[in-house]
């Protein structure tokens, strides 16, 4: 059998492979390629960029948990100007498509980044991270509220013709409602999930481990939660889904595709194995080949024969 076709169209972005680097773990996009080739990646999602530089949170910013990682980086980033002048020219030369994750503390800040990036050569899409705390709504994350979600997505949509990914936070009662809202407000792709909110306590020091007390939980620990949200959102929206959360193998990635994701992003799994993109690509191709499936797109959502609404109690 010929090599299976791994190409996918993610909301208008044509990807050579369905494997992306998630925003954050892969940094500016320039650090990992120095060490492990990035050829297996369909796209790189650059770490969240804001209009002005963000300082980030006080250390410690990381702690390992059972099969997971808790982080409170606090979206440290050098700001839009540095990104455009310094990182973007180098990113364009790498090969994978470049998607910029954008962040803000107000709707206006989001809109400003989107507006500046619109039409810039080398930017293939935007991912709006709506997990940021809204300064005007007492620090509540935009993505925990349908009205705020609609507002920020519409504001960004108005400023850009680029394919628009909207990245949801899992810390909500009804992820499908937020996804639907984002779709109606103009999202071309729904990305999920961001990290689960969590914390750990140091019982010797009798204080939270992280300098910021709370952090975001990622890694294999959260994969069942992520997978279920992808399944639920796939039931609800008609735009494609970028699935992520705890992927450390091709088998994990295939679960996301079968749950209804068009493509997957690798986050904390890169820490576990910097060569993961290549391994996932080979593993997916091998699976398809063994089963005589010619194209990845044929198995998108394939586990969803009888969609279910059963909530366990």
């Amino acid at each position, binding site marked *: 059998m010929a090599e299976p076709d791994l190409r996918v169209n993610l909301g208008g972005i044509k990807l050579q492979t369905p494997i992306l680097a998630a925003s954050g*773990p892969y940094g500016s996009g320039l650090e*990992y390629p120095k060490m492990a080739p990035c050829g297996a990646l369909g796209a790189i999602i650059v770490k969240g960029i804001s209009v002005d530089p963000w300082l980030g949170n006080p250390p410690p*910013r990381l702690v*390992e948990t059972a*099969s997971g*990682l808790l982080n409170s980086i606090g979206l*440290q980033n050098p700001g839009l100007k540095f990104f455009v002048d310094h990182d973007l020219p180098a990113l364009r030369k790498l090969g994978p498509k470049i998607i910029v994750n954008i962040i803000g503390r107000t709707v206006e800040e989001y809109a400003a980044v989107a507006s500046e990036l619109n039409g810039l050569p080398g930017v293939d899409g935007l991912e709006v991270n709506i997990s940021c705390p809204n300064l005007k709504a007492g620090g509540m994350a935009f993505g925990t509220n349908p009205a705020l979600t609609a507002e920020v997505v519409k504001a960004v949509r108005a400023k850009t013709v680029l394919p628009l990914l909207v990245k949801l936070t899992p810390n909500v009662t009804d992820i499908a409602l937020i996804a639907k809202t984002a779709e109606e407000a103009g999202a071309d792709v729904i990305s999920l999930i961001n990290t689960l909110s969590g914390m750990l306590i140091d019982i010797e020091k009798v204080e939270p481990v992280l300098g910021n007390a709370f952090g975001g939980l990622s890694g294999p620990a959260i994969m069942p939660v992520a997978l279920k949200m992808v399944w639920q959102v796939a039931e609800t929206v008609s735009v494609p889904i970028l699935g992520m959360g705890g992927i450390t193998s091709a088998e994990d990635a295939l679960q996301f595709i079968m749950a209804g994701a068009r493509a997957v992003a690798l986050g*904390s799994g890169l820490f*576990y194995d910097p060569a993961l993109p290549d391994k996932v690509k080979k593993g997916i191709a091998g699976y398809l080949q063994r089963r005589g499936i010619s194209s990845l797109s044929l198995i998108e959502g394939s586990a969803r024969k009888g969609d279910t609404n059963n909530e366990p109690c």
Partner: protein
Amino acid sequence: MRLLEALNRVSLGQYTLLEKEIIGSQYCRLVFLAPSVAGAAQPGQFVMIYPPNAGVQKILPRPFSIFAADRETGQLTVFFRIIGTGTALLSLSEPGTELKIMGPLGKGFPVPPAGSLLVAGGIGMAPLVFLAASVKVELNFIYGVANSEQFSCPLDYINQPNLVLHEVTEDGSRGELGSAVDLFRRLLPRAEAVFACGPRTMLEIVARDCLDSGVAAWVSLEERMACGIGACRGCAVMTKNGYQRVCSDGPVFPVEEVFFHGRT
């Protein structure tokens, strides 16, 4: 003196464990055949070792200073304290098995001038032993630990002709009675430059005294790490230029950068 930038020569590979030594109940020395790492390694740099047999329970690699690196034989040595699951699993590996290692990482020490003072607290001796072994000029080397049991480093690594070794224990069970800091304060007036690694409290005193007396000084810092290559921004430490990454902007920093107001 320029901090060494070696990120371009980082490699990720599986390397054979050649030798393992368990020292006392708490320490372990591992020697790998890792020519590409050993060949590029600079004193003060570190490697990330992926805990074996942990599956996804431990998703992060563990950072260890390079304790010795031999370009000729391609041997790379790390020396660590068995403190948690990752180090325990590493200490269970048997020679002959292969482990995944990424390195060398970070920016190392500048070359110490003759008359430099190296101050090692506990397992903080690891990068300083490599530093001392890499030069021929005369050095003073303070090696302070709590008690004789924690004198983990085999002396043949430190007893070099260019080096005056000052052992000190807090309980006097070996070498001088006192702390590395006491000895440091005595030797500082004669020091050309200072290179230190050890507990944070020790580094703070070393930094303050060096800044006060105008002696150039470098410290090697630790922070929890995930990527090890500057991507994730997880290992931030406050510096006079804002947050910097211990893994790629450090782990070695000039004291004036990281102890700009007495502490980070």
